[in-house]
């Protein structure tokens, strides 16, 4: 019985966020199309356009899915259902991750396939591309944590602003690493220690943030 209530909550979130997901996918598809059919000039435009939906997904989703729920006072309605606050948190983490990862995976896989098969961009770019694509994932985890644990809109916005400002910095820092930039122009993707370490850290950080969120939420005594 318990599983099905959490399942219903996850389905509910999916249903509520459907319009946003569709828009994000459409935008990403459009950006990839530009990359696919364009020449040198439109490449950069396409590339940038491609990352925008990923960032939007990462930043808007938690605010809309979780933050609004509390702001719009839907939380009392949900907590009147036979669930504990921990189950609510779990459902939020699961549904947010699913709603984020499904489009994210779709777009990123499509981009990788594009690079692999079409030769529009040197294939050496793939590791850097994945590292870049992981940044919104980290941002997503951080904002989700802030919004769930912090409860007020302010925390979500603060995390949002923090992430937006640091993406550029993080990328700049990475362009300084010869281990990444060297092979990037090459015809073959090179998975050297630099690339793997960075990617590995990103994934671990994301998992840690999610775990931290779960832990902090379970310690709360006044939920609504």
């Amino acid at each position, binding site marked *: 019985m*318990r599983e099905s209530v959490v399942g219903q909550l996850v389905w509910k979130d999916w249903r509520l966020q459907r319009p946003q997901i569709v828009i994000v996918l459409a935008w990403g598809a459009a950006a990839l199309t530009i990359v696919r059919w364009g020449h040198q000039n439109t490449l950069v435009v396409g590339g940038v356009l491609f990352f925008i939906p990923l960032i939007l997904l990462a930043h808007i989703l938690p605010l809309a899915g979780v933050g609004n729920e509390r702001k719009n006072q839907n939380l009392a*309605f949900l907590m*009147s259902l036979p*669930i*504990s606050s921990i189950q609510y948190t779990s459902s939020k983490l699961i549904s947010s991750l699913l709603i984020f990862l499904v489009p994210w995976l779709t777009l990123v896989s499509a981009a990788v396939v594009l690079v692999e098969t079409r030769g529009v961009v040197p294939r050496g770019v793939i590791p850097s591309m994945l590292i870049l694509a992981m940044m919104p994932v980290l941002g997503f985890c951080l904002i989700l944590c802030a919004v769930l644990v912090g409860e007020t809109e302010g925390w979500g916005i603060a995390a949002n602003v923090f992430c937006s400002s640091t993406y550029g910095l993080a990328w700049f820092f990475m362009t300084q690493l010869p281990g990444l930039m060297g092979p990037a122009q090459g015809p073959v993707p090179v998975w050297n220690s630099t690339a793997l370490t960075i990617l590995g850290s990103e994934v671990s950080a994301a998992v840690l943030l999610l775990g931290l969120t779960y832990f902090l939420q379970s310690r709360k005594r006044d939920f*609504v």
Partner: protein
Amino acid sequence: MSDLAIDLSGVRKKYKFFALDNIDLKIPEGQIMGLIGPNGAGKSTTIRIILGLVHQDAGEVRVLGHRMPAEQVAAKWEIGFASEDMRLYESMTLGWHMGFIQRIYPNWDAAYAQLLLKRFGLRAEQKIKGLSHGQRVKATLLLVLARKPKLLVLDEPTTGLDPVARHEILRELTAVMAEEGRSILFSSHNTHDVEQISDQITFIDRGRIIDSMDKELYLDRWRRLRLEVPHGVELPALPGIVGVQQDGRLAIATANAYFPGLANAYETSGARVQRIESMTLEEIFVANVQYSREEVEA
């Protein structure tokens, strides 16, 4: 002794500017309890503690036999909660919400839900954002009523509603009592509604329970005595009289523990009892708050 639907003993909860102090509340199964008190008295906090949404600092909370907040999931299968500050999802329809609840709760009564739609004048295809305040309140209550829960906990169910809507809701609430074993706890500013449908009344002010008892007995204890006080007569201080207001030769004595001997005592002292009036719950509310606060400050 019948089972208790709600049993609070020695419950305490401290916030920065407010504290619930030593709350004892017992509601037997099969009864309606009305919870009244001024704004900020602690009604909503008490209700949230009952629902397990807020964890008490001290004291025992048992709802339908379940310890709260530890067993809140088990309890919430049988509790229907609706609160004034609760909102449904604006972009979805009422029908979507009904489906959502129906998939979760096995004892959803679809026929009753349809009947309520008709009685409340609502349509399932309507989006929540298109509903007026009164319609939203009725929609939220419909979702809770159609489940036929064993215990209904309602925080201000009729506040802000027009008289017709209020009547529609009171009708459904009293209809719940047709089935034995079902209970209702509701808080309301609408003292008339509380007076009409409650079996028991609990009065809370500034985090403390001031009174909690059978409604009929409670109404019987309060009386207003209109007195004519001749010159030179001083009114005696009597037990059971909570306050006296005097203006020249006319005085009004408010009793919260009335017995016929009180009238005699006044007459003996030289005053004349013009009239003994019973008080509406609203008048009792105001007098209670006024005099209990004076007592504390004295």
